[in-house]
């Protein structure tokens, strides 16, 4: 909606008729964005003309009338837009400066605050709305609540907000306004209790460092001494898992003394909430389920975990993936706090949409890292291409169980036995490596071989289509898989 930039300047008590000579900006464009001088609100221009319109005029909708065709408009700008369509000659196009006086408006109702010229409003629309609101009949009623309005725009604005935004305090009170909500929370008793509990585990990922105090002794001392980093992670984990009986008393004491001040009073709700938070990591559930002491361990452990994850940020991801018991702290669980932490700092406008479900698929309870480091498809392709271009890789075929007992592939293989390096990082140009993989080795296989070669296709296709067929000829590459068993097989079959 166009920004209405009217001048406000100080006004004296009397209404003077002289004009300020201030040219109204009649720019046809509905928005003129050059900022005009605004006076303090409530202080109209002393030299402005004070106008008192009758109630009828105020309620009328089309105050601005085109002089040419007598069409009425609600707004001056709309009238100007309309006048353009009349193709007026230049002179008539401009509004003469004489016409324009700064006008301020008073409310005709005596007894109203704005009846005084000193409290006149500079904006016609403003005075009309005021008149409607204060002295008009409330014709528009909100559907959801009981509020009613005289001005339609007020009503619309309210109905958009009504019921949409709700702030709920933990004590159960509902608020529609953010400011009143915040004020309430500052004084809410119920909240004060909760915050004491919250010190245990920053489930809102607040960045308090929860390292227990230095008076801790024994294995969980590692909790304290090590800098807030990965070292925190394995130590308590190991201690918890391997020596539950030994540690439980100690950690219980430690925990109670430092991290969990009110633990004793409200243990079970904490356990539950802890479990709720911790639902991501699968192993933790096992720990939680054991006994109270173990769960105490959990709390201190996980307090440490979250503390560390909160401070260490991206480095933790790399570090945590290398911790010895990866099952306890799957990297995915530490990604989440990081991403949440950082996403609040980036000027990300996507935060609202992306962050909202903190990516659940990252944190499904089944998100165990693959048991063995899986080789990526890209790396496999590069390897294949590499093998194709160097003509090696026969051990693959044999390794895959192809019993090729004839010697000819072996002889050929030895001739192809080039130094084979796994250039996984080798930038492999698009398809050429793979093409060679296909084309290069059709000659390796003797077409007259009757035994089964790798795919059998080498021979068939080798004859009719040089581009197809077996991808790998004989050759070295025992180090392709780095597996001892393969090389043994190869050795037994190699002719040379």
């Amino acid at each position, binding site marked *: 909606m166009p920004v209405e930039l009217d001048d406000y300047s100080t006004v004296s008590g009397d209404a003077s008729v002289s004009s300020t000579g201030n040219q109204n900006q009649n720019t046809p464009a509905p928005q003129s964005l050059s900022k005009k001088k605004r006076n303090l609100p409530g202080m109209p221009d002393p030299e402005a003309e004070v106008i008192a319109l009758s109630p009828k005029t105020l309620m009328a909708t089309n105050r601005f009338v085109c002089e040419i065709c007598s069409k009425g408009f609600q707004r001056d700008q709309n009238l100007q837009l309309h006048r353009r369509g009349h193709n007026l000659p230049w002179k008539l196009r401009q509004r003469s400066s004489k016409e324009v006086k700064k006008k301020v408006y008073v409310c005709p109702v005596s007894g109203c605050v704005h009846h005084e010229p000193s409290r006149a409003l500079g904006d016609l629309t403003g005075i009309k709305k005021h008149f409607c609101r204060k002295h008009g009949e409330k014709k528009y009623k909100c559907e959801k609540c009981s509020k009613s309005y005289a001005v339609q725009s007020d009503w619309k604005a309210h109905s958009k907000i009504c019921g949409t935004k709700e702030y709920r305090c933990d004590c159960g009170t509902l608020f529609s306004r953010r400011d009143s909500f915040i004020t309430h929370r500052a004084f809410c008793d119920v909240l004060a209790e909760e915050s004491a509990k919250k010190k245990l585990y920053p489930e809102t990922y607040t960045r308090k460092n929860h390292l227990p105090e230095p008076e801790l002794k024994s294995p969980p001392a590692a909790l304290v001494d090590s800098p807030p980093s990965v070292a925190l992670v394995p130590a308590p984990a190991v201690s918890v898992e391997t020596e539950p009986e030994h540690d439980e008393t100690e950690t219980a004491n430690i925990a109670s003394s430092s991290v969990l001040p009110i633990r004793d009073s409200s243990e079970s709700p904490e356990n539950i909430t802890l479990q709720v938070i911790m639902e991501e990591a699968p192993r933790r559930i096992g720990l939680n389920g054991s006994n109270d002491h173990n769960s105490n361990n959990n709390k201190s452990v996980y307090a440490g975990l979250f503390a560390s994850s909160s401070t260490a940020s991206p480095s933790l991801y790399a570090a945590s993936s290398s911790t010895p018991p990866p099952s306890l702290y799957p990297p995915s669980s530490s990604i989440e706090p990081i991403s949440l932490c950082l996403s609040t700092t980036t000027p990300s406008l996507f935060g609202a949409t992306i962050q909202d479900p903190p990516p659940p698929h990252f944190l499904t309870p089944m998100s165990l890292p693959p048991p063995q480091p899986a080789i990526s498809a890209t790396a496999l392709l590069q390897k294949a291409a590499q093998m194709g271009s160097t003509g090696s890789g026969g051990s693959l075929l044999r390794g*895959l169980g192809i019993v090729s007992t004839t010697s000819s592939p072996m002889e050929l293989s030895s001739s192809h036995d080039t130094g084979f390096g796994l250039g996984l990082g080798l930038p492999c140009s*698009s398809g050429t490596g793979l093409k060679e993989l296909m084309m290069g080795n059709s000659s390796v296989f003797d077409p007259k071989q009757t035994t089964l070669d790798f795919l059998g296709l080498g021979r068939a296709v080798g004859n*009719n289509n040089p581009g197809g067929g077996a991808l790998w000829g004989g050759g070295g590459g025992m180090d392709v898989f780095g597996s001892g068993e393969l090389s043994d097989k190869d050795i037994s079959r190699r002719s040379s």
Partner: protein
Amino acid sequence: MVTMFQEDNGTSSVASSPLQVFSTMSLTRPTLIPSPSSPFKDLKPEERGLYLIHLLLTCANHVASGSLQNANAALEQLCLLSSPDGDTMQRVAAYFTEALANRILKSWPGLYKALNATQTNNVSEEVHVRRLFFDMFPILKVSYLLTNRAILESMEGEKMVHVIDLHASEPAQWLALIQAFNSRPEGPPHLRITGVHHHKEVLDQMAHTLIEEAEKLDIPFQFNPVVSGLECLNVEQLRVKTGEALAVSSVLQLHNFLATDNSGHSPSGDSASSLPLSNSGKIDRFLNAIWGLSPKIMVVTEQDSDHNGSTVMERLLESLYTYAALFDCLETKVPRTSQDRMKVEKMLFGEEIKNIIACEGCERRERHEKLEKWSQRIDLAGFGNVPLSYYGMLQGRRLLQGYGFDGYRIKEESGCAVICWQDRPLYSVSAWRCRK
């Protein structure tokens, strides 16, 4: 004892009748068909992966040369080894296998059509998958970021801004733009967004979201939906008015225009060639139409891979790399058991792969090309490149770091941004202005 197919005389496998061939197979080699999993049980994933690649290439070769029996045998092996819920290579292989099978099937058009006749297009699933793609990958996020930045910078000082989104499916992009416009020093302009999409519901949803945001921020805003497929779009429908500054955003749409029946028309997959692109076809008409609107800025996000080779082998080789990279991304970010991940793999990437491999002519719409080719083409149509600003690139890089999307890189290539996974370029974002 893995064998695929035996020829006693080593001649071409296009035998006289399939039954004959199969019978020879079973007669001479009773152990031909191995028990389903025995030779493969002890395969390490790496070996299996390499074997899969080998099989795929072999199969494709057979399909290309018409030796369908060999191809069929290869497909059988592929089905044994690949799986949509295995490791990365298995998944990639599964979808390529399906694509190759489809390609074979297309040689019997009636059969193909009959099998696909009862497929329904589920709009909400499409939308959902698109959203998953947005969530799981940073690609769209970076693209939107760079697009918005380019638009913001070019619209400095403009008071009436009209943005045309050629595939309006994601409100997040424009929400961000609205907010960015709101916080610019000279205040927000009068903003108009025209969204083009072939589903009305998507546009309605978008309208609702955007209008809500604009009203919250009190910005003069208008959303004009245009329910139309992009190819039959008439630029008149976009209702560009004089006096307003126009921005056009195209995200992964332009490549569809390259689909044409003219077989000799799309140049072979040599991205280094500097041959002028002489094909005047749908794409040039479209670009010219856009040029006629005199946009102040046009931002194009496209795949940066050469999947438009004229032969299936070329396309397969290229797309293997690309989709291996994309599947790798998913593997590192999302657990294997995730249904959402499988949806993206199947309904988004799987369909693209199918289109690239199995279809030809007008049906093959996923005609991705390298950035260089796009640049040439757009330049020929009368646009000048607008280099993406330093700040934009910085924001893009920060976004990648911030969301933990390690493995991704943004590199700059003559003023355009290329999003790569490890070293493999995947998508490119470039900005253009109308050059008169």
